[in-house]
């Protein structure tokens, strides 16, 4: 709202790559009638998009991330650390494209930490795999929670060890160590059958630290092992030593942080790469086989590393991190609002786990079956059981969730109960929430300010939900600018889904109106209903840019720079050409932005 006019491309670092830290609203000038033109670069490409006019010129090289080992997400490795960021910030600020608080820690500047703490979800799975447990121990649910400052919880800048979390780690380490030594079979499993202290330290340390221990570390932990018999006094010296080592290593910074300890601007070590890929994709530490591959030198070449990354992506057990990616993107970690039990007696708390699991299965399907953004938005695949099937008006027996193909009225995730019911009040759909969420998650448009909060006593009897919203946010109101062409049409398209996500045909006794026109970069585009709207979004360039941006941010586990964003445009071109999420991820994992240590003293 009220942004300055921008009428020329903004160039970064002399690469003729436009600063892409602009959002849809900024691009199209929500709040004014500005026509914004900005360039857009692929990964080392010559792509140029005149957003304001919609004219697009794409030269060769739009798929830059795989054009060469020195290509970064956004430029060459050598130029990645250049001053293009500051230039971009300055240019963007001058142009009024960036928020006022862009400078400082909220400006999206990465920390480029050498010590990226495991997320609680990663800690759970790492402990499961390290201690050979059948399932995650579900201890981290009681850890001091990490505040969420950015779109994703894995953002390196915000993962630290607070005093409370240190206590939590300490208690968890003691609990788990006790569990291992009190369970003989588990102890034998964790120790790989050895009963020798030195061997145990070597074996366990390699897994916990994701690399062989140094000689000094071997000595340190063997000494700790030796103290066990005297300090714990269980009568089993080996078990006591194991207890000491497990309890200590689970609190070690080398376990709790994924480290990048090599020189600046150089490629990460094979062990660091294996850990980074494994945690990024599978949310857990590398397996013994992965560590063995590193030891065999398989990651020493670019080609070897790429094959390694592809194998991790293709592992059916992988993809867990990216289920979390989607869930966080749509804020599905938020609870459901209570529904009016008289209006919706069928929507009970018993349904909620099935709705969450259905969404998870959908995301798993997208990853495992090598699908992409269009499928996220348009796939007919859904998962229902006997409890949720009636709400979808389909027939399924049994409590287990089963895959179904919905009809044309329910394409993609935004027509599923999990999304629709979350974004609704107790009695009615909430088109503003639905619209805003889609705008933010799929079109990358953070919105200024809080939603309107006018006096609702002005709502007239008999007004439909849409009429009421239009009366307070439509043309001629103070919120008209951003609402009329962006938020409202996105929300109104789903007005045929009630507060629990079931189909409805009428509101206040009159047919619901799902039609509208959404402003895209190419101009206003009309639609009749949600399927048509989602189809338009799926073919829009801005949705693919947004998707690529989010995917890059999640995979790199940090805020993006202007160079990264320029690179995301290149990924967006691939996504537009129907590249799957895995394909895009492999490009990101293969880029020097992922494989090279960068950052430095600040």
């Amino acid at each position, binding site marked *: 709202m009220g942004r300055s006019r921008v009428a020329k491309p903004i160039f970064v670092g002399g690469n003729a790559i436009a600063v892409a830290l602009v959002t849809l609203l900024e691009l199209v000038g929500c709040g004014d009638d500005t026509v914004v033109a900005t360039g857009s670069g692929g990964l080392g490409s010559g792509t140029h998009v005149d957003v304001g006019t919609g004219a697009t010129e794409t030269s060769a090289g739009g798929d830059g991330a795989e054009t060469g080992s020195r290509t970064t997400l956004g430029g060459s490795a050598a130029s990645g650390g250049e001053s293009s960021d500051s230039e971009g910030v300055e240019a963007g600020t001058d142009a009024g494209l960036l928020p006022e*608080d862009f400078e*400082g*820690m*909220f400006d999206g500047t990465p*920390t480029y*930490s*050498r*010590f990226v703490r495991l997320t609680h979800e990663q800690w759970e799975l790492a402990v499961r795999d390290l201690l050979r447990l059948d399932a995650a121990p579900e201890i981290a649910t*009681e850890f*001091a*929670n990490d*505040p969420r*400052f950015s779109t994703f919880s894995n953002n390196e800048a915000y993962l*630290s*060890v*607070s*005093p*409370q*979390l*240190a*206590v939590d780690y*300490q*208690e*968890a380490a*003691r609990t*788990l160590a006790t569990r291992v030594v009190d369970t003989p079979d588990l102890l034998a499993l964790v120790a790989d059958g050895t009963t020798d202290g030195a061997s145990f330290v070597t074996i366990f340390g390699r897994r916990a630290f994701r690399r062989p221990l140094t000689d000094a570390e071997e000595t*340190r932990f063997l000494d*700790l092992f030796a*103290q066990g018999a005297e300090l*714990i006094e269980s009568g089993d010296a080996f078990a006591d030593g194991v*207890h000491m080592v497990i309890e200590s290593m689970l*609190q*070690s*910074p080398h376990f709790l942080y994924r480290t990048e*300890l090599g020189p*600046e601007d150089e490629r990460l070590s094979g062990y660091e790469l294996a850990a980074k890929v494994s945690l990024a994709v599978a949310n857990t530490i590398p397996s013994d086989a992965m560590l063995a591959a590193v030891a065999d030198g398989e990651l020493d070449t670019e080609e070897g590393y790429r094959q390694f990354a592809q194998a991790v992506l293709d592992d059916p057990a992988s993809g867990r991190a990216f289920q979390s990616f989607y869930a966080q993107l749509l*804020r599905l*970690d*938020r*609870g459901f609002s*209570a529904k009016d039990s008289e209006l919706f007696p069928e929507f009970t708390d018993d349904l909620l786990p099935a709705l969450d699991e259905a969404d998870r299965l959908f995301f798993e399907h997208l990853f495992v079956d090598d699908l992409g953004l269009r499928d996220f938005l348009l796939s007919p695949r859904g998962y229902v059981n006997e409890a949720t099937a009636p709400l979808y008006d389909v027939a399924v027996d049994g409590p287990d969730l089963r895959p179904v193909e919905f009809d044309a009225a329910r394409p993609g995730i935004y027509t599923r109960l999990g999304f629709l019911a979350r974004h609704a*009040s*107790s*009695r*009615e759909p*909430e088109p503003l929430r639905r619209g805003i969420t889609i705008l933010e998650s799929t079109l990358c448009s*953070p*919105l*200024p*300010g*809080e*939603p309107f*909060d006018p*006096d*609702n006593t002005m*709502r007239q009897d008999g007004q439909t939900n849409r009429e*009421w919203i239009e009366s307070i946010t439509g043309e001629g109101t103070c919120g008209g600018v951003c609402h009329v062409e962006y938020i409202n049409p996105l929300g109104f398209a789903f007005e045929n889904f009630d507060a629990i996500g079931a189909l409805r045909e009428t509101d206040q006794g009159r047919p619901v109106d799902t039609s509208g026109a959404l402003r895209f970069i190419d101009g206003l585009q009309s639609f009749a209903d949600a399927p048509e709207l989602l189809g338009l979004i799926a073919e829009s360039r801005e949705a693919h840019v947004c998707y690529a941006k989010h995917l890059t941010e999640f995979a790199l586990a940090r805020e993006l720079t202007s160079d990264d964003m320029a690179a995301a445009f290149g990924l967006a071109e691939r996504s537009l050409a129907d590249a799957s999420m895995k394909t895009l991820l492999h490009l990101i994992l293969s880029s020097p932005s992922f494989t090279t240590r960068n950052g*430095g*003293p*600040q």
Partner: protein
Amino acid sequence: MIHKYRTSALLGRRAFLSGTGIATIGLPFLEGIPMRSAWAAGDAPVFGLFMVTALGIVDGSQSSDPAAFWPPETGPLTTVGMQAFAADRCTGLLADHAERLLLVRGVDYPYPNTGDAHAEGFVQSLTASQPVGSNSSALASGPSVDTLIADALHPGTDPLTLYAGMKGGFIDERISFDGSGMLRTAEANPYVVYQRLMGLFPGSGVADRHLGHGKSINDTVLDELNELLARPDLSGADRRRLEQHFEAIRGIETTISSMAAACSDGRLDVAAIEALSEGNAFRRNGAIEEVAKLQVELAAIAFACNATRVATLQCGDAYDGTTYELDGMTLPRFSYIAHRNYSDGSTGSPMPEAVDWHMAIDRIRMGTFRHLIERWLEYTTEAGSLLDHGFALWTNGLADGYSHSFRNVPYIIAGNAGGRLRQGVYIDAGSVTNDRLLNTMMYANGVPTDNAAALGSGEFLEDMLVER
């Protein structure tokens, strides 16, 4: 798994207490607290709890609303005087403790709302700093008062940061900040807080384990962190991160080794705490006030254990779906009530009963604060109760609930903080910003007036103080 461990530890502790009869005997609570850091010899320690509630109050600022919160006029507070308006104005529910109260009106948040008023109100409530970021993600641009107090009185030890409510994922905790943008997480489960404190009680938990192998392990972790900190190629951010980790481990060591025999759970309703041990019982909707009551008692124990001199407690975050019961009926979500329609914004159906329900909730919340006063009065030493050694401050992230106003935010303070704060009086600060009130509370908490750290203007509200 961790529940299993904690339960067994809890039972062990309770058995110990029963065996010694401590569980049924009220201990002199504040005796023998070790003196530390900024306190000169001979001074008594002062403790402060800042309690921030959500969604504003009904204070009559809307023309159609009754004046249902503040006393009718400023001036001295007496039990008889407050009883006279107790039926209509919820602060009257504190009438029995009139002589221990300091009510302050006329205090505003310094910065107007630019995004989500709930988040920005919480952010400013204890920092008086400009919110940065957008909407529900707004953060403070400076430290909160509890951080400054902790830094001054016991460096290296974090304030106790507590929460009551469900944490719905929209705003969650948002009042305690270590610095610009550095939000401190709050513990919402009283059972977890209790477990941590229990470890400090002599004869059990962490204290004893520490005597065993724990110290060796902590030393190993500290050695590893020291080695990493010695690297010359660390960025400033990484150095701060590792130093924070290092201080956290060392803080555990320090806390354990410095605890005296004064702290115990002798007055705590352990059964109520234990009832919250399973799953998400502490997050059960409708339990927010019950949890808040337990948290303020745990704060008192933390003070006694010298785990901290300052604590915060946030009750709800506005959008978390909290509901209250009134006369056996579960009311709609408090957020809906505060917004006066069946939505978190303005798009729901009208709610004609909203004002009455909001007033009723204000009275329920005032009952919780009265509980705090009455419990803290039970903790006595020769010099008086915990309220004579400290204070509890009750405020809200907003002023008027419906308008989301930042003007005339309510402040109710119980306790004289070692004789520093005036008592038995209701004052009008005259539309000043809350940095002045927070600086005054910092002084009351024991931070010397010449301390370099101060919020905003650095000025005080002298009218709140006996003398300075």
